[in-house]
């Protein structure tokens, strides 16, 4: 495949794989409650993500180590086990939310309640992992995720005001509901800066056998893929600001989020919303399941690859099998996926330091990266992300209690 085609595919899959239930729900809530005021949170999250994703790809391409590999080797098993526990628990919660998102999408499309969909959906996700290859999952699911471009169409059709939208890109303080504003901002950042995305991206670079020649491609994909993906998130917020805020509708239920599409596209909006969310959450569920299995396999030194037959990497396959079916249990019991989503986003924000601090060390390691290690700009960005992550870690849970 030519490099140009690889870049194009990489950007497209980044766009298609960007939105998931967390980013949609948090952006919709932000738009419905605060209009354009929280666009800056999405912008900040995306800027951080561009740098983190680029670094993840660079580390893999140059050192031939994934982030997890390198973390285990450099920091040793005792430290690694703490990160494993924190990241995997939170990722599991997010997996429950994504499977729930698929179930909720099917609920609004068919009228059958999401608890009934929990087992078939989990089975479907598992079957794709069992029989599929990395390319199928990365490219196939993400290409289907391009249905989420419907949110951009909806936002444009609602005729947003350019000046107000631009104003929302600058941080402002809310007049009222400060706790809710803070919590929503934290949730947006938690939805954007997801450690599992970094782990998945670096594992993907190894699966795709990247080397140093891929550094420019990596930079392109990270920058443009995440930027366009971030535009999708902003489109959700803008559409919610125009469709929901004037009517005083808060997004507590999944069906309310559908209104931001149906207001703009009365005829097809409902089904488009359902289909877009179905594919977005499917892609995310596959990605998180793989990320968790990668974490165990790479950290503990097992055979791993999505391109191998399951019996050839038995422990790796066993891990994703177990977690997918465990994730179905809360949904079968009727636990609200939206509540799980918000908790997952807040906890992702709270556990960010665990992922980002070791990453800063790795990106400055001359043995892994040689001349390709971080310069002062990248280090400054990571330092800012660490600062943000510590602030989020401290405030996210109290804000969830006060603001949700």
């Amino acid at each position: 495949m030519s490099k140009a085609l690889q870049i194009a595919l990489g950007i497209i899959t980044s766009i298609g794989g960007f939105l998931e239930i967390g980013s949609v729900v948090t952006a919709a809530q932000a738009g419905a409650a605060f209009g354009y005021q929280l666009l800056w949170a999405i912008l900040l999250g995306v800027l951080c993500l561009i740098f983190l994703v680029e670094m993840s790809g660079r580390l893999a391409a140059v050192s031939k180590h994934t982030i997890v590999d390198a973390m285990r080797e450099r920091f040793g098993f005792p430290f690694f086990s703490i990160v494993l526990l924190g990241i995997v628990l939170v990722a599991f919660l997010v997996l429950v939310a994504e499977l729930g998102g698929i179930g909720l999408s099917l609920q609004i499309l068919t009228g059958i309640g999401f608890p009934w969909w929990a087992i078939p959906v989990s089975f479907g996700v598992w079957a794709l992992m069992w029989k599929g290859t990395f390319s199928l999952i990365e490219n196939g699911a993400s290409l289907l995720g391009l249905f989420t471009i419907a949110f951009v169409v909806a936002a444009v059709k609602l005729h947003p005001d350019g000046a107000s939208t631009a104003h929302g890109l600058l941080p402002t303080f809310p007049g009222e509901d400060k706790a809710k504003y803070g919590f929503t901002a934290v949730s947006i950042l938690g939805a954007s800066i997801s450690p599992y995305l970094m782990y998945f991206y670096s594992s993907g670079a190894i699966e795709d056998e990247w080397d140093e020649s891929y550094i420019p491609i990596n930079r392109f994909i990270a920058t443009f893929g995440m930027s366009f993906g971030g535009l999708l998130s902003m489109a959700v917020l803008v559409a919610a600001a125009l469709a929901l805020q004037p009517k005083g509708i808060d997004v507590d239920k999944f069906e309310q989020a559908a209104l931001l599409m149906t207001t703009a596209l009365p005829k097809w909006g409902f089904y488009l919303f359902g289909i877009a969310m179905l594919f977005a959450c499917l892609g995310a569920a596959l990605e998180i399941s793989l990320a968790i299995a990668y974490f165990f396999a790479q950290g503990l030194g097992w055979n791993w690859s999505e391109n191998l037959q399951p019996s050839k990497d038995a422990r790796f396959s066993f891990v994703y099998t177990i977690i997918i079916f465990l994730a179905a249990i809360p949904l079968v019991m009727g636990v609200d996926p939206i509540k799980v989503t918000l908790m997952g986003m807040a906890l992702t924000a709270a556990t960010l330091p665990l992922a980002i601090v070791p990453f800063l060390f790795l990106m400055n390691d001359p043995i892994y990266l040689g001349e390709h290690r971080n310069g002062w700009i990248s280090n400054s960005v990571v330092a800012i992300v660490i600062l943000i992550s510590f602030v989020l870690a401290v405030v996210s849970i109290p804000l969830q209690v006060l603001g949700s």
Partner: protein
Amino acid sequence: MELNAELLIGTKVVDSAGESVGRIEEFRVEREEKACLVNTYVIGVSGLVDRLSAWTLVRPINKFLHSHKLYSLYEIPWQDMDLTDPRHPKLRKARRDLRPVN
């Protein structure tokens, strides 16, 4: 005596007078065909920084803080380390007789 080398990492080391010297952070070894010979034990925070390959991060911060504490580093020859009790390693010398590595 057979012991698990990995359990020595981070263990506090005292000198012959019982004064704390630092923690074991690394082992410098020489590879041979049938075994690795332990030449020196690296003790001190700088040993940890070295192990994490973190000097490119630590040096600028250190410079900014005008701190010297981070540069504590001792390389103890194997003959000077008493591992009779692996949980409480002891030096066979006093701290004042040790020369820190710059």
